């Protein structure tokens, strides 16, 4: 039996780390990695909740999250490669072209 309180705290810590990674990092690859961490934190929360209520739904959703993360990452990495080929950098502040 998983200790639910501690597990959620762990998920929260992981999620916060992911957010900080997204905000603090400038390299696109690291940002994508941080997003993976956030997704996994959410997945962890689902699995823990599923175990608590003895329902398979939590693990089912985690599988969906994994599939979604894989799809997202494949597209994201493809874009990263293309960006790097064109601009020779992955710094988001340098790459920023949007102007309000």
């Amino acid at each position: 039996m998983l200790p639910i309180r501690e597990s959620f705290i762990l998920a929260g810590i992981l999620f916060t780390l992911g957010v900080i990674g997204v905000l603090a990092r400038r390299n696109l690859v690291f940002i994508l990695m941080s997003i993976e961490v956030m997704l996994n934190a959410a997945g962890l929360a689902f699995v823990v909740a599923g175990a608590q209520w003895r329902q398979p739904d939590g693990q089912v959703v985690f599988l969906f999250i994994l599939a979604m993360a894989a799809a997202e990452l494949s597209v994201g990495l493809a874009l990263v490669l293309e960006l790097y080929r064109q601009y020779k950098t992955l710094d988001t502040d340098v790459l920023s072209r949007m102007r309000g």
Partner: protein
Amino acid sequence: MLDLLWLVPAIPFASAFVLAVFGPRMRSKAVAVLGAGAIAVPAVLMLLIAAAFVSAPPAGGAYTQVLWTWIGVGSFRPAIAFYLDALSLVMVVVVTFVSFLIHVYSTEFMRGDEGYSRFFAYMNLFVASMVTLLLADNLLLLYLGWEGVGLCSYLLIGFWYQDPVNGLAGRKAFIVTRVGDTAMAVGLFLLFHSLGTLRIQDLLHTASDQWQIGSPYAVAAAALLLGGAVGKSAQLPLQTWLPDAMAGPTPTSALIHAATMVTAGVYLIARTHGLYELAPQVQLAVAVTGAATLLMAGCSALTQNDIKRVLAYSTISQIGYMFFALGVGAWGAAIFHFMTHAFFKALLFLAAGVVIEALHHEHNIFRMGGLRKELPAAFWTFLIGGCALAGLPLITAGYYSKDLILWSAANSTAGTAGLWVAGIAGVVLTSLYTFRLIFVVFFGQPATPVSHRPGPAMMIPAFVLAFLSITAGFATTPFAAFMAKALPELHEGGMGMSEVINSTVAGLAFLAGLLVAWYAYLSNPALGRAAATSRVGRVLHRFWFSDWGMDWFYDRLFVWPVVWSAKANKADIVDSIYTGLTRLAALCHRYFSLTETGRLRWYAAWIAGGSAFAVAIAMFL
């Protein structure tokens, strides 16, 4: 024959449309033929219809032609329908016939004017609207025609729009009549609300079934309709627009502001006579309004020096006589006076137009003079019109119609001695100002050389009208019998004055005015000048010249407060609330757009912060 009735308003309307759209590209000859022809056809048609109507009167003395349902909302189903009875027949025949003559006159009078086709488009539209007003089966259609003639009046007063004064006169006419029209609209709402129909004949029947004599509803409805009539017919207290309306071309003044449109109020009251019989107080008010107006306008006419303004005041005064007749219950006499007035007043305006054009658009009568020899045709037609206006006994039409009105005032249950005396005083005034005008313009020494002589298109209509101004009076008896089919006859009673005494007094009143005018303006002109320059004379002259100070009074009472508040509110206080809102929006836009940095991480931080905030709200609230 009667089923061709719809063509009478339709033809001028179609012609107005064609002239408005294609007129500027048409040759002026084609415009003249179309413009006058589109009135000639209805005029002839109307004469044929009148012949058919008289020879084989329709069942019930009236013919109704329903074209289609105009609006259908529940029980409110006004139709485009025409109603022809003795009253509307006489009115439409006179209107189309006089219109035709004036259109013929205009083809020459307006020749060379930039807005030649525009003029005929307006005039034709006017005739179409006026005929719609007269033939309307229900009050809503009548109101459409009523507003249509008001619009044409506005357009034609401001016809020479390059001069701002003319535009101002047009706006004044429009706004002042609007005051009456609003009262009339409220009256229509009241009638529909309480009687459930606007068909005039149904309405009069229902009203007499449903309401007692003197019931508040009947009084209110009659008074509100009277408001509309007073505005349109330039009666006290809304008469101030008519003298200024003389800014329009002279044929317009003859047609709209003398012969036809301004008598629409008389027609409205005669058409809804049943309501006024239910409200005797209002009927008395009609008589008093008419009597007061005819005296006031008569005094004002004495002092004017613009030939058209004299005629305008005389129109106000003569319509006063018609109201006076309506007020004492002499419905037929009022319509008879409408007819003779349409002939002689149109004639006077046409002759005045000849004089004005002959003297390089000179309007001041004191710069005319001696035109008797120079313009004999204009002199004789003007003299005949003037005699008819003043009521030259036994010969002219104006004498017979006015005589009938005065006799009715003395012999009606609704008439009083005071009203009769006012009517007689009006005859003296009419005769005085008419002959003052004739003596000053056509006698004495020539002051301005004649530069232009009228052609046949201007003189023939005047001759026809001169003929009618004399002969129409001989039709008094058959006319009265014909009118009795549509309008109730006079309730005889009152003073019981004999016809001979009444006619003699009226004839003497005419002679008195003529003699005073002859003495003061022809035989001894120094006396007339002395009277006008004496101390009392000067004050009276100024007072009457400015129409009893009515314009002065209205300026201070209505115009100035409005202008003042408009100036005070120049910055538009209410609008500043809305501009404030846009300023606030622009300010917010400036500050919020600062957050649009284009930095990815900055956006991510906002998303994270916003989500945390939303979660916090969900958790703690």
